[in-house]
């Protein structure tokens, strides 16, 4: 599904990713853990194609498609979803308009028929219910006045409606209370399927109590320094990153 090979990237001329390689197969959930400044968020932005993140070497493919050759919106249409650590507020644009515009833009890009109003509302209603976000909230401007937990639930609703092949979730667990964490975890688990994959980027082991990853990777200095099964997360929790990286 996702193949990253020897990826190098810079931000403002400073090297942040230094030869990162990673393969995530369909049906798998991989967790990337690491200390602050290891390059976790940079990895997610580089995958999503954000301006200002320059790839200086390596390749990234999604189901064989060269992701790095695509613009950010084309990557989304190709099946990539980035769950943001800090979802953006957009005054004057309702969540429903935002999401319908996004869904139909992706469908057009893939040569599929656009969703009718009724089809879209049915889809949203199911997912909003599932993630405990009221339709009233979805009529409000994107994330404006939402609590941290509500913003993350909203990200999950978007993810479920857009149904990506690969979800990259950047610190989706940060700032969540235990209830919201449970909802988000259920969402991630619900979207697990033999044809999709998830990359969880996280600082803490907490989320992995609820979402059991296939593989855990430790990112330090812009490279993966160690990989293992779910037990590696627990080891990290006890030993800290210092010993693992050494």
């Amino acid at each position: 599904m996702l193949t990253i090979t020897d990826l190098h990237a810079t931000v403002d001329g400073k090297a942040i990713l230094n030869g990162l390689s990673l393969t995530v197969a369909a049906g798998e959930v991989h967790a990337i853990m690491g200390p602050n400044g290891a390059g976790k968020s940079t990895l997610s932005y580089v995958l999503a194609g954000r301006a200002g993140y320059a790839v200086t070497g390596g390749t990234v493919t999604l189901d064989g498609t060269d992701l790095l050759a695509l613009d950010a919106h084309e990557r989304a249409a190709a099946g990539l979803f980035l769950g943001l650590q800090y979802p953006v507020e957009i005054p004057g644009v309702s969540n429903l308009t935002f999401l319908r515009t996004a869904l139909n833009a992706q469908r057009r890009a893939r040569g599929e028929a656009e969703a009718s109003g009724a089809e879209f509302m049915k889809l949203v209603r199911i997912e909003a219910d599932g993630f405990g976000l009221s339709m009233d909230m979805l009529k409000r401007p994107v994330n404006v006045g939402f609590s941290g937990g509500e913003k993350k639930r909203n990200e999950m609703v978007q993810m479920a409606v857009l149904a990506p092949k690969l979800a990259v979730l950047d610190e989706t667990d940060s700032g969540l209370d235990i209830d919201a964490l449970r909802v988000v975890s259920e969402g991630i688990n619900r979207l697990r399927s033999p044809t999709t994959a998830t990359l969880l980027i996280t600082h803490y082991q907490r989320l992995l109590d609820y979402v059991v990853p296939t593989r855990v990777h430790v990112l330090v200095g812009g490279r993966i320094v160690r990989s293992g099964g779910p037990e590696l997360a627990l080891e990290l929790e006890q030993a800290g990153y210092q010993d693992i990286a050494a």
Partner: protein
Amino acid sequence: MGGMTALPTRRDEAWRYADLAAVARVWPVAAPEVVVVAAGTTLTRDILQDAADGAVGIVQLDVTVEAGARLEMTVLNCGGTYGRIALDVTLGRGAHFGLGGVILGRAEQTLEIVTTVRHAEPNATSHQTIRTVLDDTATGSFLGKVAVARDAQKSDAVQSVKALLLSRGATANAKPELEIFADDVKCAHGATVGELNANALFYLASRGVGPVEAQALLTEAFIADALTGNDAFAARAVGWLRRTL
């Protein structure tokens, strides 16, 4: 404003950002249209300034809103090489003036909305919401003067003025001016000039929305505050954005 016969110069405060060469081509212009909103009544009035390319469009109104009357006005200034909508509004006791104004400029257009709102008597309210979107090397200006007379206690005047620059070569001017002679009044104004939010653009892109559609969505949201309830102008503005972005 009204009654002026000599060609305005840069020294005339209300014309300082005007395209005076263009003004000279059509000077003298017709006297302002006189509008009276009779006591206790409500008037809704829309003004569209959409002169042909290269033409000059100047619309001037002298308005009196009598005691307890309400005037709800929406203006859209988007056409011509120079376009000006000038409103001189005098408010009686307890009168209300609501204005939603939008300037959409591109190429080398110079477009202006110039208002003078006179709170002549107590308890009047005025709420002005102005949104300007400029591309290329266009210039868009809002000059808004609020004059509160000595006896006009409990006046409530609000101006919200925002401009969005789609190109680095565009120029926005915002000049709110308060002239207050009463001591128990509420006058608030805020003015901002900015570009589209890069975080919002990336957020939309990350969800699959292409740059043109994302800009259109954010720009429509930006002007929506000034066009509440005016579907015809909103549709025109959307058409303008589709052609511009």
